[in-house]
């Protein structure tokens, strides 16, 4: 192994460098300079994201523990872009609420550590690396959920999150140990060759899947989601719903398509039922929500059900549609969460009722919210439509028409509750509507980036075609 091969870990090294620079900054800055950490961290992450658009070769490190290829690299760049948008959206919240308490740089460090965890998790070549990545993703987020320390609900959310993740990690680890017991290896590649559908292997898989299902908040492992989202600061809820969920979906897909390929007849049925349950649970509960954070929590549960449709076709098409949908979903959800964040930091209002008459006072924000929600609902010509339609295509390509039918019924249900928010903003008139306000510059940048993603990622087809072309990299 030579020094150059370390460059395969370029994205990870970049994040580590940012972390180190942030620590140095934290040590050597005095109290007045603390606020400068915001532009500093944002610029560093922007540079790292921009570097992600340079090509990178595929390869393995540490005897196969760490591997990277075009698809993983693309996904990491997408996640990094998502985090950049998210941090832009939270910059003003940090400036107003957190800098005084001297915790701004910690916020960045925690988020970037968690992002680093997702990188290791999806790049893992064996279960050990995978587990380290998983924990590195989860633990900083638990601290972040409790970031509003003066709010009881935030601490409560953090406790719920840490307890349920500990349980989930335990279940996953137990599953891994059973799998190790049947195959005698923890490497993905060799396990894929040895694994047979023995009862022990199936049991191991089920435990492992339950652990991961917690992270993706699939029904029936979704109970923590709404409470944690409600308690967490909005940007942390947003992080949970897009970045950590997206990464967990990707690694689940990779494992199902490679390591557990021999168990396909088994997991196929499990996923089939989980998809239906997740979509119905998410959608039916979302209808009743008033608090927008809980609302988006249930909506993101339902979206996870849609994402899994791509798993039904165990091929390049399924991979491409999942990666594409996750990318699109990141933009759409960040758009919605961004607006909630903007409104909340101006007025502390988070309920759907409070949004009544918003269009007449804040037309641009309402418009963006509508775009984001329509994209989540799958209305053309927004990106979400293409994402969803392609997921249907992936499931239909293997003949699961009934499943697709259930999914489209759910898409219609979801349209109903997304329209409830649109109704509040556009249709209702309200004397006490939230008055006009101008969002600060970072927030506007974050929102504009999300809007561009929503508008462009669908109609501009080369994005999908590129994802498709790199999607076969780990299948053979």
């Amino acid at each position, binding site marked *: 192994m030579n020094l150059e091969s370390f460059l395969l870990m370029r994205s990870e090294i970049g994040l580590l460098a940012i972390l180190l620079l942030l620590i140095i900054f934290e040590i050597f800055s005095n109290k007045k300079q603390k606020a400068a950490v915001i532009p500093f961290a944002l610029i560093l992450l922007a540079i790292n994201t921009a570097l992600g658009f340079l090509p990178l070769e595929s390869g393995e490190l540490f005897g196969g523990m760490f591997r990277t290829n075009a698809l993983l690299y693309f996904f990491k760049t997408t996640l990094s872009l998502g985090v950049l948008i998210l941090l832009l959206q939270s910059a003003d919240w940090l400036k107003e609420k957190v800098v005084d308490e001297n915790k701004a740089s910690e916020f960045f460090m925690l988020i970037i550590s968690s992002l680093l965890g997702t990188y290791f998790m999806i790049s893992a070549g064996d279960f050990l690396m995978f587990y380290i990545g998983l924990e590195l993703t989860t633990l900083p987020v638990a601290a972040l959920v409790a970031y509003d320390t003066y709010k009881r609900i935030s601490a409560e959310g953090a406790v719920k999150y840490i307890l349920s993740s500990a349980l989930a990690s335990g279940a996953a680890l137990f599953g891994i140990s059973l799998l190790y017991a049947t195959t005698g290896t923890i490497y993905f590649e060799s396990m894929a060759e040895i694994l047979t559908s023995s009862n022990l292997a199936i049991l191991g898989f089920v435990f492992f899947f339950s652990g991961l299902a917690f992270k993706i908040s699939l029904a029936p492992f979704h109970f923590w989601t709404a409470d944690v989202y409600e308690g967490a600061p909005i940007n942390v809820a947003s992080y949970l719903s897009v970045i950590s969920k997206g990464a967990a979906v990707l690694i689940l897909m990779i494992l199902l398509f490679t390591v557990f390929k021999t168990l396909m007849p088994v997991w196929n049925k499990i996923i089939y039922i989980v998809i239906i349950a997740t979509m119905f649970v998410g959608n039916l509960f979302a209808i009743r929500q008033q608090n927008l954070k809980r609302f988006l929590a249930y909506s993101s549960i339902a979206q996870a059900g849609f994402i899994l449709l791509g798993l039904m076709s165990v091929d390049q098409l399924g991979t491409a549609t999942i990666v594409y949908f996750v990318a699109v979903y990141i933009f759409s959800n960040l758009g919605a969460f961004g607006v909630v964040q903007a409104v909340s930091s101006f007025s502390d209002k988070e309920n759907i009722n409070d949004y009544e008459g918003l269009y*007449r006072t804040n037309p641009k924000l309402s418009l963006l919210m509508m775009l984001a929600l329509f994209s989540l609902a799958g*209305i053309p010509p927004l990106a979400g439509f293409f994402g969803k339609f392609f997921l249907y295509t992936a499931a*239909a390509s293997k*003949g699961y028409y009934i499943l697709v039918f259930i999914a*489209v019924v759910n898409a219609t249900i979801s349209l109903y509750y997304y329209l409830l928010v649109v109704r509040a903003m556009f*249709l209702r008139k309200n004397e006490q509507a939230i008055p006009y306000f101008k969002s600060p510059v970072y927030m506007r940048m974050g929102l504009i980036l999300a809007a561009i993603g929503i508008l462009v990622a669908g109609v501009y087809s080369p994005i*999908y075609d590129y994802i498709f072309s790199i999607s076969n990299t780990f299948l053979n």
Partner: protein
Amino acid sequence: MDILSLFVIVPVLIVLALTFFAKDLKQARLISVVGMGIQFAMSINLIFAYIKERAVNTGIMVFTKDVVWYETFNIHYSIGVDAISVVMIALTSVVLLAGVFISWKIDDLPKEFFISLIALSSGVFGFFISTDLFTMFVFYEIAVIPMYLLIGIWGSGPKENSAMKLTLMLMGASAVLSVGILGIYFNSNADGGPLTFNIFEIAQVNIPVAAQNIFYPLTFIGFAVIGALFPFHTWSPSGHASAPTAVSMLHAGVLMKLGGYGVFRIAMYLLPEGALNWADFFLILSAFGVIYGAFGAVMQKDLKYVNAYASVSHLSLVLFALLMFNKTAWTGAILQSLSHGLLTAMFFALIGMVYGRTHTREISKLGGIMKVLPFIGAIYVITGLAYLGLPGFSGFVAEMTVFVGAFQHPDMFRRILTIVVVSSIVVTAVYILRMVGKIMMGPLSNEEYKDLPKATWFEKTGLILLLIPVILIGVLPLGLSEMIKESLQPFLERLL
């Protein structure tokens, strides 16, 4: 830029112009009227260009263009028109332009109103020019979703509920449709070719009959919900009653025609065996819809509801004619779409004008309007007569062709159904004559109505724009029906 893509691009440009330049009502309507005027001129030009092109071009579609969009799925932006799409495009342009004139005085959020209206129109135009299933589906949904805002913000009565009901039912239908489209797509390689969304490539393929039997009803219902197929028509009366005038005009006049068009061009054309196997079932539903809509209209007290149920009846007649599987009936179906589109738009415009002045739509409270509003009254009577099929107007030509075509069928079941459906003409006469007689003739019902303002120039312009084609089709139907019949040839070859 080719002649067809402009129909999508011009509305988008107008929307952008409205977004950035329109400051108030005057500027918004000026931009809209100029833009829609251009659109109208383009569609007149298209008719003549089509006739000229047709003389030299014998392809199914003319002015075709094909650009790869999503390479991996073999999705193309492919466009082209035949006579059916040309007349539908012309209808859309007329109704839109008239709709802009009728909305001259919209006071609440005028800019947004015109933006939504014109964004919707780009979806409609895109739908009519597409020859690729996926692209068509995209445009179809673009045409439906602005309806929610249009009814919800500018509507009247229980507008929020009506808007929600309409949007959910139509989007639910389009969700079902998407399963049908996927089914067609994944069977388009049945003969060993590549998977494709292109309508005319799929039309060369013999899709297995078992698959056709499954996906035909999905596709059919997906489209027919917006074409007011019984029992999926329930969104229509409440939606039309709550919508603002221009939106009712556009929706009943144009958007509901997307249903018949889609049923014909997608469901029946691509899945011919499925169409034949399911024909009787849907025939009964549509025949029932004709009668049910007509009787429903008789029972209504609100002018808009009368017209909404009448639309259900007349559009079920379109589906009925399409399911009769012969050239005459199909020609009749297209003529009926066209004629109903114009007439129902006129009706909604007139109802809007009466309502704007008297602030009531209840038939029992209105009377003798003709005396104070002679222009509106006269047009109302003309529209009514045309609607119930008086010779000399488009309604007669259309219904006559439908019934002649339907009766050509030798089998007893269809003949009996036809006879039943024909009887709806009588019911139509009942509700139209009763309504027109009650509100236009007789003594003035309310002294306050004496000083109602006369029709303004923009109202007159809107109405006359719609009336001219009604009379043209009524007096000179032959050229039009010949043009349509030519374009039915590929359908005949595939379906019969």
